[in-house]
């Protein structure tokens, strides 16, 4: 069934703006959800999906705009308000209490009571009835934590149904489910939809979007990009809607990738069948000296997972690594650093900078870690000055606290930190996300320059143009598989988008 415009909207969000200190997370976004539809909310990291959901479920207060539920305008001061209005949410990480029974989790706060005393027998009977409505029959007195995540999610949905929710928000519910569990969840979703529940669905698996949803809304950089019936948006168009076009300034940069790389020697780092159960299917990657390998794919495709395995931040359970043709053991970041591999993480704030230290201290940190805590770094001022200058960190004051710098300059400092350790391979995960165009261009230029000088780089970015411009080869990831490897000098962004959307190898969309 397809929701058409005659069906009255259950949720109407108009001109929603949410600001965090210094950032507009959402800017004037409109969003409409109708009864009896599955509506997918699409967008890359930082597009504002989760912010929009949190506005709808009462976690965040909106700065401006209106939310109307069933035609009545509402102000949510907390999740309880949203629930009272009939909006329930099932999060990716199931937000239930594992220490309580299944039945209790469903009924908590709605137990049947006789004179203030909970009647457990009828409470569990009620819980079982709600579960059976979703086609699930389990012992409601068993402990929630003894069941699989998939089942816990169904329990969470049952809980939503206890309050007779009109709107069900499913925030990445499928990310840890296997194929058959996804099927069961979809069965439940279809059933609820047919009963008139409006479902807001967020996932990063494109196949699932096309399989289950009726309409979709695309966000990018906190703004509404498009809203369409799913049948009217081909995959390639959806991907380009999500990724967007880069600005002219960047397009003006010449392609660094035209350069050829000498691949006669053994690769600096070579991974064979490297994988980790539940996060990445086995992948082969070779990185040669002076080469930039791009990793392209959408959010959740396994890009970051691959980077973390290469660096030893997560432990691989299959495959092996070789460096310069010799077997290498990289199971911890320490091993990686000893092998002169550097990794700049995707989450700059949480895993990169130390906000309360100065720029200089942040730069020296990498070097200090490498030398060990007891040995003094020789001439730290010179090292700091050299790299700040080389990367053009502004303001050029090494004693300023790093948290006072812009995102772009923080990123340059991070790059400086790793370059100071003289790595032979550097892994950059989303080094240009959320930074201004100027800094972006600086970083891209620096990467190209370094690789010309012999440094090997693994470059991960959700901006496909950037990946193509910088790298010589592109490893394409989708749904935690490597779906191919392309030489970047003879393809365009459109080709890459096509490849991500319809590769010839058909794979199931989630990991078993």
């Amino acid at each position: 069934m397809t929701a058409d415009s005659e069906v009255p909207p259950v949720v109407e969000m108009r001109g929603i703006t949410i600001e965090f200190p210094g950032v507009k997370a959402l800017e004037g976004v409109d969003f409409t959800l109708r009864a009896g539809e599955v509506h997918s909310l699409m967008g890359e990291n930082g597009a504002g999906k989760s912010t929009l959901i949190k506005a709808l479920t009462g976690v965040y207060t909106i700065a401006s705009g209106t939310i109307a539920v069933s035609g009545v305008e509402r102000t949510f001061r907390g999740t309880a308000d949203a629930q009272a209005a009939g909006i329930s949410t099932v999060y990716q990480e199931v937000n239930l209490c594992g220490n309580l029974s299944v039945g209790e989790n469903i009924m908590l706060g709605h137990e049947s009571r006789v004179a203030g005393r909970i009647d457990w027998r009828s409470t569990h009977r009620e819980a079982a009835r709600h579960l059976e409505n979703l086609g699930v029959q389990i012992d409601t007195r068993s402990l929630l934590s003894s069941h699989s995540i998939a089942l816990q999610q169904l329990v969470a949905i049952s809980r939503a149904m206890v309050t007779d929710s009109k709107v069900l928000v499913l925030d990445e519910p499928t990310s840890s489910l296997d194929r058959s569990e996804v099927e069961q969840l979809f069965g439940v979703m279809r059933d609820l939809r047919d009963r008139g529940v409006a479902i807001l669905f967020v996932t990063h698996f494109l196949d699932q979007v096309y399989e289950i949803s009726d309409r979709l809304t695309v966000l990018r950089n906190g703004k509404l990009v498009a809203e369409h019936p799913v049948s009217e948006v081909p995959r390639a168009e959806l991907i380009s809607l999500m990724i967007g076009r880069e600005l002219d300034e960047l397009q003006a940069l010449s392609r660094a990738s035209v350069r050829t790389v000498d691949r006669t020697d053994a690769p600096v780092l070579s991974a064979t069948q490297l994988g980790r159960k539940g996060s990445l299917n086995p992948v082969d990657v070779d990185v040669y000296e002076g080469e930039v390998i791009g990793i392209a794919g959408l959010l959740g495709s396994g890009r970051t997972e691959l980077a973390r395995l290469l660096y030893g931040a997560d432990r691989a359970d299959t495959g092996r690594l070789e460096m310069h043709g010799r077997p290498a053991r990289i199971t911890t970041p320490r091993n990686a650093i000893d092998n002169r591999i550097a990794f700049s993480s995707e989450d700059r704030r949480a895993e990169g900078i130390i906000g309360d230290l100065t720029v200089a201290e942040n730069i020296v940190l990498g070097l200090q870690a490498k030398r060990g805590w007891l040995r003094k770094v020789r001439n730290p001022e010179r090292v700091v000055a050299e790299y700040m200058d080389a990367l053009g960190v502004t303001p050029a004051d090494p004693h300023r606290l790093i948290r006072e710098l812009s995102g772009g300059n923080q990123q340059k400092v991070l790059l400086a930190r790793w370059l100071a350790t003289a790595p032979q391979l550097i892994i950059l995960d989303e080094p240009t996300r959320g930074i201004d165009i100027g800094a972006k261009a600086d970083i891209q230029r620096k990467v190209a320059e370094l690789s010309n000088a012999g440094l090997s780089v693994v470059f991960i970015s959700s901006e496909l143009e950037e990946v193509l411009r910088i790298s010589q080869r592109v490893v394409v990831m989708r749904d935690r598989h490597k779906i191919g490897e392309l030489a970047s000098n003879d393809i365009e962004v459109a080709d890459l988008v096509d490849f991500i959307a319809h590769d010839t190898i058909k794979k199931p969309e989630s990991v078993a």
Partner: protein
Amino acid sequence: MTTSLSPTRTSGLAFARRFISRRISWVPVFAAVFILVVMFVAAQAYFGNFLTPRVISSLLLDNAYLLILAVGMTFVILTGGIDLSVGAVMAFTGMLGASLLRDGLPVALVIPIMLVVGAAMGLGVGVLVQYFGVQPFIASLAAMFAARGLAFMVSLSSIKVEDKAILWLQSTRLQAAPGSWSITPTGILALLTVVVAALVLAYTRFGRTIYAVGGNEQSAKLMGLPVVRTKLLAYVISGVCAGLAGVAFTAYTGASYPLNGIGTELDTIAAVVIGGTLLTGGSGYVLGSMVGVFVYGTIKSAISFLGAEQSWTRITIGALLLVFVVVQRIIVARSRRR
């Protein structure tokens, strides 16, 4: 993921499996009961005259105040918090009560005052934790110092209690069963506290919310449960129990002394933990805490039977606590792996 989604599986194993999956959270309590039984048997075998009605009765009667404190502490620990103030609050309310009685206030007024003062101290800790984001450890430590200081402000020396009603609580020996099984009103009071608390935790929304908050506070919030109110109330209950323990302890010793109950908060926590309540919250029972108190009392009795120094009580409790905390870690680690 091992649990299949397929509906109804009934096999021969089903009953056993269902029993375990439903009762898993009682396992630590069973373990405590097991230890208690082992200690009884060992002490009886060693001393020959340990398991007498008199000794067993005194387990309850000598530790009534501790049992009352442990009940209140169980509420707080179930929410994932801790209350270090209970020993000092017990001393303070005891001093306050004794001095008010000396000044001629009727006991019918003094006992409610003691309970309200206890509740107020608990509320103070709860407000610090909930609204000022202070760690429960620190907030209750502050309350502990405050209460101890207040106890000294009431009087620097011990105050004898001559009130008939208070003394009746301890001096009356009711025949509980044929033989020398006896119980005092303070013992009844303590058992009543356990029963009421067990019912509240098992059969009221407030009680279940305590478990939900301790299991996953974030989830409880997102489920729309009244998290703030519940946590505040847990500390208030602990405070009220400390006030009640003040009454019981004053009756027990027949006097109040500002240095009473030093270190009692730690004994209380030890009893609760030995009784199978997880320090991380969300799992445990007041009945377990009662067993924990009895384990504590048995160790104390056994050591006085031996004629050894009471410092051995502390050492044994320490060792036992260590074992239980390690067992708890294993249980928690196993449930995380799922």
